């Protein structure tokens, strides 16, 4: 719980908050990228090197770019005329707050049971690789199938309808 933690937390939360409140969609997308980067730093801080770099590679390198593309393709870079928030935002906020209250309560209530500190896990990328093709090989295969299906599905969905009708 050093200064590093608070710094990263501040960056992450600020990015997330900015993403959810900024009017401009592109700004929001870039802000969420900051949040993603913060999370990657969190992972590194938690000695999960592989997860951290995967986070950067996938979220900043792919998801953020996808979001940005989607924004540009749906003309989302222009400011909407009737506000960025839904008509029923006043219902949404209390619900979110309620969720936070519930989660917070759960964390605080169980904080005594949490382990205080633990040594740095002696896990390297090699171990992760071995685990992926060993114990977790079935999920890995299923994931491969899912990704293939998702790729094809995304292409099919986004294809021009006229082309598909052929």
């Amino acid at each position, binding site marked *: *719980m050093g200064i590093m933690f608070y710094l990263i937390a501040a960056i992450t*939360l600020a990015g*997330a*908050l900015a*993403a*959810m409140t900024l009017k401009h*969609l592109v700004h*929001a*997308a870039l802000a*969420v990228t900051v*949040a*993603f980067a913060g*999370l990657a730093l*969190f*992972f590194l801080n*938690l000695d*999960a090197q*592989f*997860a951290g770099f*995967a986070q950067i590679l*996938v*979220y900043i390198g*792919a*998801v953020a770019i*996808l979001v940005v*593309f989607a924004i540009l393709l*749906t003309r*989302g870079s222009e400011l*909407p005329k009737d*506000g*960025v*928030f*839904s*008509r029923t935002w006043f*219902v949404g*906020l209390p*619900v*979110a*707050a309620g*969720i*936070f209250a519930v*989660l917070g309560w759960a*964390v605080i209530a169980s*904080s005594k049971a*949490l*382990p205080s*500190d*633990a040594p740095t*896990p002696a896990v390297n990328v090699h171990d*992760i690789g071995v*685990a992926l093709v060993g114990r*977790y090989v079935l*999920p890995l295969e299923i994931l491969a199938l*899912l*990704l293939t299906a998702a790729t094809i*599905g*995304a292409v099919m*969905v*986004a294809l021009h*309808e006229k082309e598909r009708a052929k």
Partner: protein
Amino acid sequence: MSSPLTGYLVVAALLFSIGLAGALVRRNAIMVLIGIELMLNAANLNFIAFWRYSPHPEALTGMMFAIFSIAVAAAEAAVGLGLVIAIHRHTGTTDLDKMNRMRG
């Protein structure tokens, strides 16, 4: 706070709530998707944090969950954004308030 884990959990809860709030109050479908991604990331943070402070980190359970979750999230983003683009092409809008043709 007694444990470093608590801090991570609180941050994750906050992140989740922010994502949820975004998903609930933003008009644009893409922003809703981003909110959902934030929620997923909060969950990932929890996984990694629990893994880091678990008694058997070499079992890699939390880590694996996070890695798979990242991959699934990428697929989800691709399909979700593809849907948004398709809907936009079809109806000319990404405004969720106007997408209510499935009402009962």
